[in-house]
């Protein structure tokens, strides 16, 4: 017969709750680009701040108290722990509420979720990072991970395009990479009305002319708006990239992040569980993907 105590002592909701947000303090708000701020967070619990580990390409569920919860990719590298950096574009109700918060205000964080980039496979190979616009946000984690473990990777190439110089995310730190000899950092803008931009001017695919890429030993990580996928993917295929070495980071509506709420499904996969990093082979096999 069941004992009444058994129920009283059984509280997975309190002890093992995957939906439990952990409170984190906003320690810095860096206004990189109008409505594309970089929020630096640190968990209130020191233990959690020390132990939190993620893979490049993973995301968290970010709660803005009173407004809601949303998936945000992690822009900081796991090689630089203790804080989380999130590049958030102000685009909807919850991000609006986030933008009303100030340094030292509290938000909720749970995660990390998703598969992340297959680092074990990528290591020892060359890496090509190709991003347009906000696509730099998830790729930045991979970029700094590779640079912080420089000896574990072959050639590293970054191709990043923004509309204008003032729209370029992480501009200062990326411009500083241009002079480094251990990475080929190629930055371009569609247009430069101010005339002050010293980098390339032109569309993102034009940067291929300046990159030395060996498709047989390179993983390509691509992220950006649909137009980026359209041109970059075709270019990579033309170069002879195997379809499972082209990695894409996707976004979908998500409410749970843990394979339950159903919103992020693409074809027969959940973006939150089998993604958000998909290969191009996945993409051509899953309807509605891009």
């Amino acid at each position, binding site marked *: 017969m069941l004992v009444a105590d058994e*129920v009283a002592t059984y509280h997975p909701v309190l002890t093992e709750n995957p939906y439990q947000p952990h409170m984190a303090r906003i320690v810095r708000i860096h206004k990189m680009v109008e409505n594309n701020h970089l929020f630096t967070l640190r968990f209130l619990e020191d233990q959690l701040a020390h132990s939190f580990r993620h893979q490049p390409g993973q995301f968290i569920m970010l709660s803005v108290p009173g407004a809601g*919860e949303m998936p945000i990719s992690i822009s900081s590298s796991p090689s630089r722990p203790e804080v989380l950096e999130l590049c958030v574009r102000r685009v909807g109700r919850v991000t609006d509420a986030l933008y009303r918060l100030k340094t030292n205000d509290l938000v909720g964080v749970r995660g990390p979720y998703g598969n992340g980039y297959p680092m074990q496979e990528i290591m020892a190979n060359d890496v090509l990072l190709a991003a347009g616009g906000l696509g730099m946000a998830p790729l930045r984690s991979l970029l700094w991970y590779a640079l912080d473990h420089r000896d574990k990777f072959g050639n590293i190439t970054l191709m990043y395009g923004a509309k204008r110089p003032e729209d370029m995310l992480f501009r200062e730190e990326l411009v500083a990479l241009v002079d480094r000899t251990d990475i080929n950092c190629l930055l371009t803008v569609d247009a430069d009305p101010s005339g002050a931009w010293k980098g390339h001017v032109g569309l993102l695919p034009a940067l291929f002319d300046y990159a030395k890429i060996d498709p047989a030993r390179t993983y390509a990580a691509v992220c950006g708006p649909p137009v980026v996928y359209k041109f970059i993917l075709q270019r990579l295929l033309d170069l002879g990239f195997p379809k499972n070495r082209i990695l894409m980071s996707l976004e979908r*509506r998500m409410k*749970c992040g843990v394979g339950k709420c159903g*919103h992020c499904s693409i*074809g027969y996969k959940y973006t939150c569980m089998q993604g958000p990093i998909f290969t191009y082979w996945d993409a051509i096999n899953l309807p509605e993907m891009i």
Partner: protein
Amino acid sequence: MKILKLPKGKLDLFASVVQQFGELHAPVEQDGKYVFKRLARWPDARLEYDRTILPPKKYFLPPRETLFRYRPGEGFVPSTDGLDQRIVLFGVHACDVYAINILDQVFLGKYKDPYYQARRRNIAIIGIDCTPDKQCFCRSMRADFVDHGFDLFFYDTGDYYQALVGTALGDDMVLATGNLFEPVGPADIDAYKERSWNKRRAFHLDVEIRDLSEIFEMEYESGIWDQLGRKCLSCGSCSMVCPTCYCYDVSDDVELGSRAGKRTRSWDSCLYFNHALVASGENFRRDRASRIKFRFYHKQRGFVAEYGRPSCVGCGRCVSACPVNIDTAQVIDRLRRVEDVGSR
């Protein structure tokens, strides 16, 4: 598995004993249909029902549920309201038990949902066999019989209910009745087999689910989806009444005049316009046709890839609930047909 039998005349006695294990809920009649509800008195129970409007899903994944309360200074405090309520669900059909087993795969797999887990643990299930009507296709979906997921399961074999004892709790229920249950003999087993045979012959519908995944892939661009899209109202009724539809939405509400609030989840449907809408305004399933296609695709194709079988159990509720008579069995049948020009 322990198998016993209960004389039919003793069922009310059994029901009165079983109440000590939790609040008794069973199908009752309401406006000519059936609903699972708390029994005011045992004679209200209707064990010879066809199907309830809502499946037992509502007990394990309530239509609205508070997950957290938020208080400045305290953060998100989990809500445990109602999770320890003990309920005995009496009279659950095999397809519905099967559906709960499917929900178990989603909610008790990786990242266990603790709210679901607590309810699943505190709600006992006593299943009962049924006779298929013309909307049932549970046999096609391999859900006409269920071998686990219940505490007790009753088969009507004439003068007796033959009872499968599924769990230790089910066994406790049997023991609590003293000696109401009797051992089964060869004649009882024959009676069961006859019952099983008769049930099999009673089905009107038969759809084939073998290689359905592949046919879905082949017919992904079929014109049938546009036809269904023009018919479908996107009302989401099929999702609400589906025993395995588990999509939910989450929303945060602030209490008036304070910074405190709560986080609630509620049933959602992939047929709603905003199901795949993201903040940038991009909607990955903007067209109605793409949404109804997605619902079929996820049930009959996506779930197979993920969990090894379709998430449909053939209960027929979506057919009853659809205001424009979209019939799941018919859609599958049309997709499989060679001569159906509508599918090109």
